[in-house]
């Protein structure tokens, strides 16, 4: 990490810290203040969008650990989120367990299912693993749809509001605080994870798993751990999603969603902590802007060909994914890092 001139580290703790300079701390505090006071000046709608972004960030961080840091391509993430969502739904609705129990169980359940479907990763990788995860997604959705006695089958299942102690998270603002807190915890967890032994093992596996095995990293253990952690996050995100929407239906978790998640982390930048956040914000805001501002605006002012509105969203997203991969394969995080270093090195940046 590049430090400005004049800063010296006198202890191991300060050397390894994430936030080094006073500017860092100041910026962090400013960001937190802005975020936590957001409910004061954002209406329900934008808080809702922010909540959705928060939930998506948690899931994307999980996918980033699995695919970005450990290199195990997984195109079935929506399925694992569904596992978490339905676990939380069933536990809080049918068994009437408290929200926190549902949250943790959702994470554990999704993690375990991810573990099971991740076992082939020990034998195959690349495209084969991708197909396995697609198959996993379809099987999970099929089971959810057909196990109607538990999951409500095709009709769906309603989910009560989240509550901790006696406090019920009914308003958008209260859900915002809940989701932001959990998101921040997850981000911190991830940032620290990659600095530990486990994280370095993941990165070694991603770069060349045979070499990693030769070096003494047990592939079996670490790959499955990556699946568990990645899907644990997906489960947590699923639980929060279930309580936020209030009614779960398997139609909400399609292959297109999984593809979108992959797109989010690639656009954001694989293998970085800030990457998923940037990618998620970019894609979700693009979705909202397209469907909420642009399409009705265009439809009411310009006489468009009939298929414009329906076709423009997938076209645009597909195009964005392809363009990012072709032109900027390291994603927005790379651009952000370039921007930071340009700022730091000015006027000598190039």
């Amino acid at each position, binding site marked *: 990490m590049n430090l400005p001139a004049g800063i010296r580290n006198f202890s191991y703790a300060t050397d390894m810290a994430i936030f080094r300079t006073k500017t860092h701390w100041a910026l962090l505090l400013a960001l937190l203040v802005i975020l936590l006071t957001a409910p004061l000046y954002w209406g329900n709608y934008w808080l809702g969008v922010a909540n959705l972004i928060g939930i998506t960030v948690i899931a994307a961080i999980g996918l980033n650990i699995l695919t970005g840091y450990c290199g195990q391509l997984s195109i079935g993430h929506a399925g694992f989120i569904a596992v978490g969502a339905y676990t939380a739904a069933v536990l809080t609705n049918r068994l009437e367990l408290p929200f926190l129990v549902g949250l943790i169980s959702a994470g554990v359940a999704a993690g375990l299912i991810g573990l099971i479907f991740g076992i082939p990763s020990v034998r195959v990788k690349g495209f*084969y693993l991708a197909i*396995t995860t697609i198959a996993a997604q379809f099987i999970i959705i099929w089971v959810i749809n*057909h196990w109607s006695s538990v999951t409500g089958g095709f009709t769906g299942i309603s989910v009560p509001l989240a509550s901790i102690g006696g406090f019920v998270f009914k308003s958008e603002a209260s859900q915002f605080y809940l989701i932001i807190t959990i998101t921040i915890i997850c981000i911190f967890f991830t940032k620290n994870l990659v600095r530990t032994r486990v994280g370095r093992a993941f990165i070694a596996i991603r770069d060349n798993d045979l070499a990693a095995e030769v070096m003494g990293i047990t592939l079996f253990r670490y790959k499955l751990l990556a699946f568990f952690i990645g899907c644990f996050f997906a489960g947590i995100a699923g639980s929060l999603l279930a309580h936020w929407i209030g009614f779960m239906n398997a139609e909400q978790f399609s292959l297109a969603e999984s593809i979108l998640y992959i797109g989010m982390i690639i656009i954001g930048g694989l293998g970085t902590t800030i990457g998923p956040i940037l990618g998620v914000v970019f894609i979700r805001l693009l979705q909202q802007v397209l469907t909420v501002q642009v399409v009705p605006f265009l439809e009411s002012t310009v006489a468009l060909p009939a298929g414009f509105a329906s076709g423009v969203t997938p076209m645009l997203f597909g*195009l964005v994914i392809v363009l990012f991969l072709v032109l900027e394969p390291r994603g927005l995080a790379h651009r952000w890092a370039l921007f930071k270093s340009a700022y730091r090195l000015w006027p000598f940046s190039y």
Partner: protein
Amino acid sequence: MDELLQFVITGITVGMVYALIALGFVLVWKSSGVANLALGQLVLISAWFTYGMLVQAGLPLWLGFPLVVLFALALGWIIERFILRPLIAQPILSLITVTLGLGYFIEGVVTFIWPWSVDALPRLFPREPLHIGTAVVSQEYLWAAAISLVLFGLLSLYFKYNKMGIAMRATADDQMAVQACGIPVTKIFSRSWMFACVLAAVGGILMSSIGGITFGLVETGLKAFSVVILGGLNSFLGAIVAGPIIGLAENLGGGYLTPLTWPGVREVIPFIIIIIVMFLKPYGLFGEVRIERI
């Protein structure tokens, strides 16, 4: 007993249709090592283009079909030139994801040009089904099966004996060595994508005459993945053999398990097969086991 025969016949013919799509996938993999996850969408857009030619422009068959083939060739060339060539040396994640993004884009284009998302081709085959013993099979399926076999034969011969075909196999094995030999790798990629698109177009026409033009063509593309995994990613023979196996598993499994378990078991069988194959024999029945070196 009647049902058994019907299930078997249906399974084999449906499986041959899957095999046809799988051939396109194997073709691209065999010659460039790229996994074409946009296969379903390529089938879709070819089917819609055929519809556009035959129904919207009202062209006769002998003019419409060659135009569709030309369209498929052009599409393959464009995809290779503008999307895959910039990514030639990139890791596999980028290649797979770019085909995913491409698939998404093609879906959008299809919805843009033909927003009513469901339609039918004019009837291309006679309606009367064929009777084999007590079982029936509609002529569309038989034609699809026959065309799959013919294409399989042609492709195998091409890859085995034709100079370009051998060059394609060499490229899939080791790109740098092929370049060192002076074979233009980019031309090979172009050609394989063009062929694969033509295969997808043929598959699209056959499948839409069976079930109409819907987004279901994309899902059948997904089922073709299970054929490819079972048969082996770089084996044409594997695709032709695994197709009917998957079709049989679907129909027999569906036919006999559904009354015992849940309705709809049939949809999940191909995916369970994928998982089982992954656990037992990841490279498929006829696939090549890759030996990796550090």
